[in-house]
């Protein structure tokens, strides 16, 4: 038994408050050096790195609901770096590196679990795309291989190799693929940030952004106005709506993305398995549940309702991939909102408003970027607007100059 558990067990009146992960609510101060809008993984990670590496702690995170309650809570916790572009692979690889250290850095177990991710190719086109992704990954030191059906059988013996009459031709085996307890990532960052003096204000909704002479000077909230030196917006799912309050447009369309989970059963599936052609991916959580995800809903919407249609098509394909799963019982279905850009890459960096920094356009790839995005955004804020090299390709003005970072082929149904 680990020592830390003994400590609790033997102390009858363990003073939980003294060891709280998150502080009790406080009043809003009239001014902060930095206001971060959005208390999801990205927002709290930015605050954490600001405090940790840059000594900037007069920071408020304003969250309209509860900590990590948006897409941090709704994503299916896939961590990977097997992207297509050089820019993407470099960026996400840094994220994977940081993820591996987080538990020990936080003193809080995020249950990082490197299981490997297997993506299936059922068409020649997919094989071509996968070969390219494997090559790009290897070029930057990642562990990704194009593997043949025999190797796939050995990795996942339970997989049907001819699902929906679409024979599996090859697989992209991404050994760095992993999962983690998604909520714990946000809590760990929040814990580290608040312990360093950052304020986390939940149930605090930003109702307007105050911009004077092209420069942000504060925000209005349901709890009163706050002035600030700069703002970081990290509100995945609502990025364009908040940007509109700050007075500019974003090249983003928002689509719901649904996922679902079964009752737990004994572990039988280690790798994360994904089939873009069948719009389906599945992984078994540490609790033994199967989590399924698929493609985004076909039309833009700001609603997190569930639909029957998506559930039917997704699960029909899941049963094609693993016929015995027909006997599993589905427990819960939910949805998140994905801010999609035209090149399937995020938007990080400067905005048309001075001192107003963007962390947006995270589509279906937000969770896996949490550490590196937070770290980069903190650098950006601390330097007063000097964009770090790693995130330069992801600036919003790339859409004006058509210097897009095309990840379309590397994101479909393999979040």
């Amino acid at each position, binding site marked *: 038994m680990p020592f830390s558990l003994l400590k609790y067990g033997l102390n009858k009146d363990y003073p939980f408050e003294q060891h709280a992960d998150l502080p009790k609510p406080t009043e809003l101060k009239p001014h902060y050096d930095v206001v971060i809008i959005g208390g999801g993984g990205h927002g709290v990670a930015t605050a954490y790195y600001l405090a940790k590496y840059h000594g900037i702690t007069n920071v408020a995170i304003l969250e309209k609901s509860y900590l990590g309650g948006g897409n941090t809570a709704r994503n299916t916790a896939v961590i990977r770096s097997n992207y297509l572009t050089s820019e993407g692979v470099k960026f996400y690889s840094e994220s994977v590196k940081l993820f591996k250290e987080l538990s020990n850095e936080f003193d809080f177990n995020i249950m990082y679990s490197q299981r490997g991710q297997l993506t299936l190719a059922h068409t020649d086109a997919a094989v071509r795309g996968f070969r390219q992704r494997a090559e790009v990954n290897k070029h930057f030191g990642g562990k990704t291989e194009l593997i043949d059906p025999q190797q796939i059988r050995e990795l996942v013996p339970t997989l049907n190799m001819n699902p929906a009459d679409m024979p599996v031709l090859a697989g992209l085996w991404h050994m760095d693929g992993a999962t983690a307890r998604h909520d714990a990532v946000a809590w760990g960052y929040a814990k580290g940030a608040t312990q360093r003096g950052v304020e986390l204000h939940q149930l605090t909704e930003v109702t307007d952004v105050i911009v004077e002479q092209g420069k942000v000077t504060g925000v209005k909230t349901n709890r009163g106005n706050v002035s600030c030196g700069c703002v970081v917006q990290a509100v995945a799912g609502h990025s364009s709506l908040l940007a509109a309050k700050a007075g500019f447009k974003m090249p983003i369309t928002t689509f719901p993305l649904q996922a679902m989970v079964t009752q737990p059963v004994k572990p039988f599936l280690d790798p994360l398995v994904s089939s873009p052609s069948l719009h389906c991916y599945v992984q078994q959580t540490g609790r*033994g549940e199967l989590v399924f995800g698929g493609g985004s809903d076909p039309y833009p919407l700001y609603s997190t309702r569930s639909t029957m249609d998506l559930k039917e098509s997704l699960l029909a394909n899941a049963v094609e991939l693993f016929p015995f799963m027909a006997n599993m019982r589905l427990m819960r279905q939910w949805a998140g909102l994905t801010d999609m850009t035209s090149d399937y890459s995020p938007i990080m960096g400067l905005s048309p408003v001075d001192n107003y920094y963007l962390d947006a356009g995270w589509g279906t790839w937000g969770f896996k970027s949490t550490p590196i995005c937070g770290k980069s955004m903190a650098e950006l804020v601390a330097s007063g607007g000097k964009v770090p090299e790693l995130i330069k390709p992801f600036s919003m003005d790339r859409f004006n100059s058509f210097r897009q970072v095309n990840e379309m082929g590397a994101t479909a149904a393999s979040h």
Partner: protein
Amino acid sequence: MTSMIDNSMRLNAPMGLLLNRDNAVEFLFEGQRYQGYAGDCIASALLANDRWLMSRSFKYHRPRGPLTMAGQDANTLVQLGGDPNALADRTPIAPNMQIEGQNYNGTLDKDRDAMLGHFGRFMPVGFYYRSFFKPMGVWDKWEGVIREKAGLGRLDLNFEPEYYDKKYLFTDVMVVGSGPAGLSAALKAADGGAQVLLVEEMPLVGGALAYNRFDIEGIEADRLRAELIAKVEAHDKITVMVDTVCNAWFTDNYLPLIQGKRLFKVRAKECIIASGAYEQHVVFRNNDLPGVVMCSAATRMMKLYAIKPGQSAVVLTGNDDGYLTALELNDHGVNVKAVVDMREGAAPMDLIDALSKRGITLHQGYTVYEALAEKGNKRVKAVDVRKITAKGEVGNASRVIDCDLLCMSAGYMPAYQLLCQAGAQLSYADDLAEFTLSKLPEHLHIAGSVNGIHQLDSVMADGQRAAQLALNNLNLSDELPGKVSCSVKPNFDWPIFSHPKGKDFVDFDEDLQAKDIVNATRLGYRDVQLVKRFSTVGMGPSQGRHSALPTARLVANSTDRTVTETGVTTARPPFAPEKLAHIAGRIFDPYRRTPMHHRHLELGAKMIPAGNWRRPAFYGDPNERDACIHTESVHVRNKVGLIDVSTLGGIELKGPDAAEFMNRIYTFAFLKQPVGKTRYAVYTNEHGVVIDDGVACRIAEDHFYVTATTSGVDRVYRDMTKWNAQWRLDVDILNVTSAYCAVNLAGPDARKVLETLVTDTDLSPEGFPFLAYGEADVAGIPARLLRVGFVGELGYEIHVPSRYGEALWDLLMDAGKAFDIKPFGVETQRLLRLEKGHVIVSQDTDGMSHPGELSMTWAVNRKKPFFVGCRSVDIVMAQPQTRKLVGFVLPAESKKPEEGHLVLEGDAITGNVTSCEYSPALKQIVGLAFAGINSSQPGDHIYIRVDGQLVEAEVVNLPFYDPDNLRQEM
């Protein structure tokens, strides 16, 4: 093997509404043979044999028995062969069914992991977040250990899916729940002229009327149930579905029902939810022991299954219903030792008198502080009863009462799931200590105890009220619905009695105790959603049916907020766990066959998927792929070949504005395209990216026929209709992909073959030149002829109505015999077009490829005012280009690059190979690749990494084959 035929706990008829006593059923539980009756669920059949321990809990492996007898809890999840997590209290027994408990190490009765419960103090809430990770790397080891303990049942990985299917239903009014509210609502709505679908989860109609006692004499429920059922059965406007669960509410009353192995998808104009309420447990130490049940579970055991739930009982209650349960137990020979009422002086006199007449002791203002167990916690044996001194606190004086059954009722939680999925709001009425629902969407109504109405007559009136609202919406009536209120308060304010030694469970699914919830808030997880996520409360199979209410109360209390402010976590579909098989239904994966499909199979084609079509890749031995393709390609180059291109998209555009429409959609100029000519058509999206191409034929001034790629046509057609919804041009757009089929007859002898069949058209090079279009009679088949050159030889695309497809194929193959015609597949076509340097959109392009990168600027008219993507193309083309699609060659003996291999310049990735094959015609390796702009001119060299080695290839002019296009234009 000994057979357990006991049934010692059975009551006489008329108890056992669900049983057929003429039909004994034998089954196996944990390897032991048992007997029950048809109609028994697994749990009742086991209880009949006095078997209470049925499964074990998730975390501490606590022994568990039935709690609700209605499938509302996860205490008795059992394994049925390879089918895990079946509800023992809902699943009927079947002959020779093999059943096992879950979550034990060893046997159900002797679980080696039962000691986990003793280590509970070392597993505080969220303990796994605080441990197992130091030093770095140690989590990788612990994870395996913990994972081994995770999960509930075991899945049979060899399970073969069974037949499940789906059906659509439509109704004026759907009523969910057939208790007194649902029955009254159904009758009222049907009497008012509406078609009604009444859905009941249990195998019999009546809801609480079937098992609960509503009066001291115990006669009212049976009388009323019989009366209502008679009326419902006689009504021709009411359809009743029992054993059917309405498992979700989706927008606009789209309601999935699950019955047996069928999923019904219902659209209801009006929906009335009369789903009842879940009886709630009291939180005290060992409240999870087998033998501790809800009051309604005890009455269900007796009335539905003729089970005598125990020999001696204690009833713990916070409302009057517990008194009636005590009377029912007493009537069936159970020695009721005491009724323990948590309230002080709230019970009506007639109930108190009824107890005393039967000699049942009553303790008012008392509670059960702890349930005491036999060794191994397998059954309750006594309870420790204490006086309540303050909210959640008890005195020191203890009174131990022996019993083997404890029935409890702390009140009710509305079955809010479907309503909250529909957006209804839950708020807590502090005076009633009860959650109530409000803000329902239109066409959704609520009635009965789910609406906070608990007196029988009011419940019925509430059903009629809801039905009236539905009738008004259906324009079948316009009466004002009556007002219904309720004067009964069935919920006890604070039925939570924490014990310093714990095991006072709030959530049975997840083994969470009162202190776990409180400590989560003390650690800073104050929002109820965070409490859930940190502690896992409500995340188990029963999704918070019993934990939501005590959790809300505990969190509110611990964070100084109201229960309404605290709330409960979001209810999401499904209502009850549903098998994937139900949702997947029949495994139905239609793929499309071209009209010549059978001919391909007869000719030995290797078929491959192409979008949702199947196409011949090549003909011949699948193991000799390269040789087959080689032979076919040489044959097309030297003689004549035939390929089925029916999967090509076909779009018909007709109307005065057809040419203008074409001109706006595609990049080329189409206004002046002559009738009888074809023209290459490139489609760019709004980002200026090439996303499809095809051939446009001008059939008449106002009539175009344009092809699209196999996988792209649906999108192109969708985009066309979308754009014209804005442009409002006078043009009809029709996707005729499956109405037409097509072949490409290609090779130097193609004309000779076609001439034997076509007599009404001059096919000479002058009469029907390259890029011509015409309509012709092909041996009696009306055909559209396109002279195209995709493979680089003299060729004719012949498009005919689909019904002629097979005949056309046969005619051409027959006529071609004299010229040694051979079929060729799509892989061969890919090689041939590569030799010709033709791009396949989506293979040789990616999500960012603009016409400039693809050397397609010749097909883009920059003078016309507009086409989709024109603005973006202008912007992109004005910038310095960074990459370009180029042709490259390598000697035949060189290492062959694969599609997807990278083009490198030093350390930088500048591009990738998109197509690469050995060319039999040119005797060298040819390919297309994106290359950096500085190495994209003929004569430049590019470096391709092939299996780790750099290969140097030379950039050449395209096409590789027949650079002067003499062959396709002959």
